């Protein structure tokens, strides 16, 4: 009997042993002198098409380099697991707010030397460069920038005899002017609301935070100090509290903002004013062909308070530190995000450019409505704090907003808890 058990154990152990040693690296090696670069990104059909185009021209120019683009569903989970397991691609797409934590953990390489050698950095908007710079090094090359503006239902404005908002960024409405219009449009009995001050409504996520942080900045407040060491005196400053209390009042005393509304409230005609970015233009045109730009809806600059500030930051490209071919990877990144690539990118995707040269090159970027976003990006854009703790800060701020709005609780008290949470994380 014992013999059999011994045999079993040996078989089992050897299976484990063989299995554990079957370590086969499947990295894009350079057989016959051709370097294979792997490049991962998230799902987006139009951008994918643009990149296929750019890959084709790149491979023609550099016959010794081949780029394999892989589209990942649930991209962040996929790339993080791959980074963790040492199976990451050479080039990764990276979302602005996560940059610092990837940089801090040594997952991506700084690009400063490449930019110094090949140029192209001066052409980038300062606010974009700032959003991609962590501890004085720039870690990613921007595909494009992003901004948000005031999308308004023109029909609802006209029906209620409300004056239309301006088209020039420098003439942006103040909070009070927007509120005044929102009050006149709101018809809560019929489910029509004037103003959804948060992007995508009241639901957790970075979109919400992206659109809400500007209120603090516009009021003259902030979430943390410049050096990102504390939230005390910033998130709980009078200015920040006033901003948060203003947003809260929209959902309660003023009654112009809905806590919950149907899917796509804006194109379905039950929301007067929403806050979204340029990507929404294509979405509305494709999915709601009966909801016509210029007739049914239009775009005005993002509102202001004592200051005019807009958010920025979008998707970028970075070289992972696991890459065996960082130099070749840079060549591809520069091809896509450099002056010429950026023009192709804009032509195919209509994303807000991060380069001055692209902004100048296209007529439609200098006319309504894209001009609003371009002017905002040039003049008023402010990046979110670049810190590895941003993810926690963002979640804490989102929680604060939700609890204040949903529970209609006192802002002064609610910020205390949030300040403590953020300070704890920053102290670690």
């Amino acid at each position, binding site marked *: 009997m014992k013999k059999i058990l011994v045999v*079993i154990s040996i078989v089992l152990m050897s299976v484990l042993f063989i299995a554990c040693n079957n370590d086969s690296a499947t990295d894009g090696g350079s057989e016959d002198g051709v370097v294979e670069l792997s490049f991962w990104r998230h799902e987006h059909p139009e951008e994918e098409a643009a990149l296929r185009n750019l890959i084709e021209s790149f491979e023609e120019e550099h016959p010794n380099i081949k780029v394999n683009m892989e589209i990942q569903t649930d991209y962040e989970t996929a790339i993080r697991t791959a980074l963790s397991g040492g199976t990451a691609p050479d080039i990764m797409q990276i979302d602005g707010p996560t940059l610092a934590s990837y940089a801090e953990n040594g*997952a991506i390489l700084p690009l400063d030397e490449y930019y110094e050698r090949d140029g192209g950095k001066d052409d980038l908007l300062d606010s974009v460069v700032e959003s991609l710079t962590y501890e004085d090094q720039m870690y990613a090359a921007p595909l494009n920038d992003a901004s948000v503006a005031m999308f308004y239902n023109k029909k609802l404005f006209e029906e209620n005899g409300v004056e239309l908002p301006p088209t020039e960024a420098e003439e942006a409405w103040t909070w009070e002017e927007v509120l005044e219009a929102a009050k006149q449009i709101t018809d809560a009995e019929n489910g029509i609301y004037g103003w959804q001050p948060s992007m995508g409504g009241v639901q957790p*996520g970075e979109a919400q935070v992206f659109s809400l942080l500007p209120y603090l900045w516009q009021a003259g407040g902030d979430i943390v100090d410049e050096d990102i060491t504390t939230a005390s005196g910033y998130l709980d400053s009078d200015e920040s509290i006033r901003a948060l209390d203003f947003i809260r009042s929209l959902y309660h005393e003023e009654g112009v903002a809905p806590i919950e509304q149907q899917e796509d409230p804006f194109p379905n005609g039950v929301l007067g004013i929403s806050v979204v970015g340029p990507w929404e233009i294509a979405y509305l045109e494709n999915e709601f062909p009966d909801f016509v730009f210029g007739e049914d809806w239009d775009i005005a600059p993002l509102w202001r308070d004592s200051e005019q500030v807009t958010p920025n930051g979008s998707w970028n490209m970075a070289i992972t530190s696991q890459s065996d071919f960082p130099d070749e990877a840079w060549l591809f990144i520069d091809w896509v995000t450099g002056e010429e690539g950026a023009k192709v990118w804009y032509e195919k995707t209509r994303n807000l450019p991060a380069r001055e040269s692209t902004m100048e090159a296209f007529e439609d970027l200098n006319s309504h409505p894209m001009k609003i976003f371009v002017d905002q990006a040039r003049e008023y854009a402010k990046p979110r704090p670049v810190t590895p703790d941003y*993810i926690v800060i963002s979640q804490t701020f989102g*929680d604060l907003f*939700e609890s204040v709005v949903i529970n209609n609780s006192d802002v002064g008290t609610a910020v205390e808890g949030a300040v403590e949470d953020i300070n704890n994380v920053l102290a670690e």
Partner: protein
Amino acid sequence: MKIFSQRNREAVAAYLFILPAFGLLLLFILNPMAQSLITSFYDVNLISDQRSFLGMENYQHLLNDASFYQSLGNSFYFAILVIPIQTALALTLALLVKRSFPGVGVFRTIYFIPFIISMGVASSIFRMMYNKEAGLFNVILDGIGLPVLPFLSNPDIAMIGIVILGTWKSMGFFMIVFLAGLNNIPNDLYEAAQIDGAGPIKRFFSITLPLLKKVMAFVIIITTMDALKIFIPIYVTMAGGGPAGSTRTAAYFIYNHAFQHMDMGYATAAAFIFFIIILIISLIQMRVLRSDVEY
């Protein structure tokens, strides 16, 4: 002597039967679990290859983390609601469709359908149905004169929305588990009871329920484990534990710390505290339901 060797041979055969399962378990589940346990004593970021030893620090930190307790509370709240409701409904359905009559197959299939819709898609559908203004669920409530239930924006009732979704999704499966169990109860027992004059209710409590004990034990223990680990509806239907954090469960806490904050050490420590809690509950349940393996 002979009996001894007989037993011995039985034991060897038994081990051989278990061996494939155990080998795979060791390799693909116990081994990763051990590695996660080790991780829980370190400060390690998901995407970094650096790690530094912390000892029990992650655990100490967790025991002082109010949001961790809150997530445990939410998990238990959900489990305590869903276990009796789902089990009772599943058993009722099984009793309704157990006997053969024309068309019974259609009913069985209909009750089972929610189980074959993927959890991700089902969670999205319920998110849309629960919409306060335009969701099918609330439009119908409103249409028949009942008050609407804003599961997505009222923190007090949000978890009820998840209970309804969970029950809808899983009761069909537990129905067929009960059906398989009912199938094992000999019909003559019922016939004898009927001759003795026992009514349907008496027959249910004196025959069906006692003879379903093992199946019942399985259903309750599994429902408890699944309920405590609920994740996808929290992530999808409630868009990440909303409204105002009222549906953040322990599994969501673990996911959030592991894949959002990328704080692997902290997340695995939370997972092991949670693991111990679930295990203790399951063992108590096994003891209470006395559904042990035969000796």
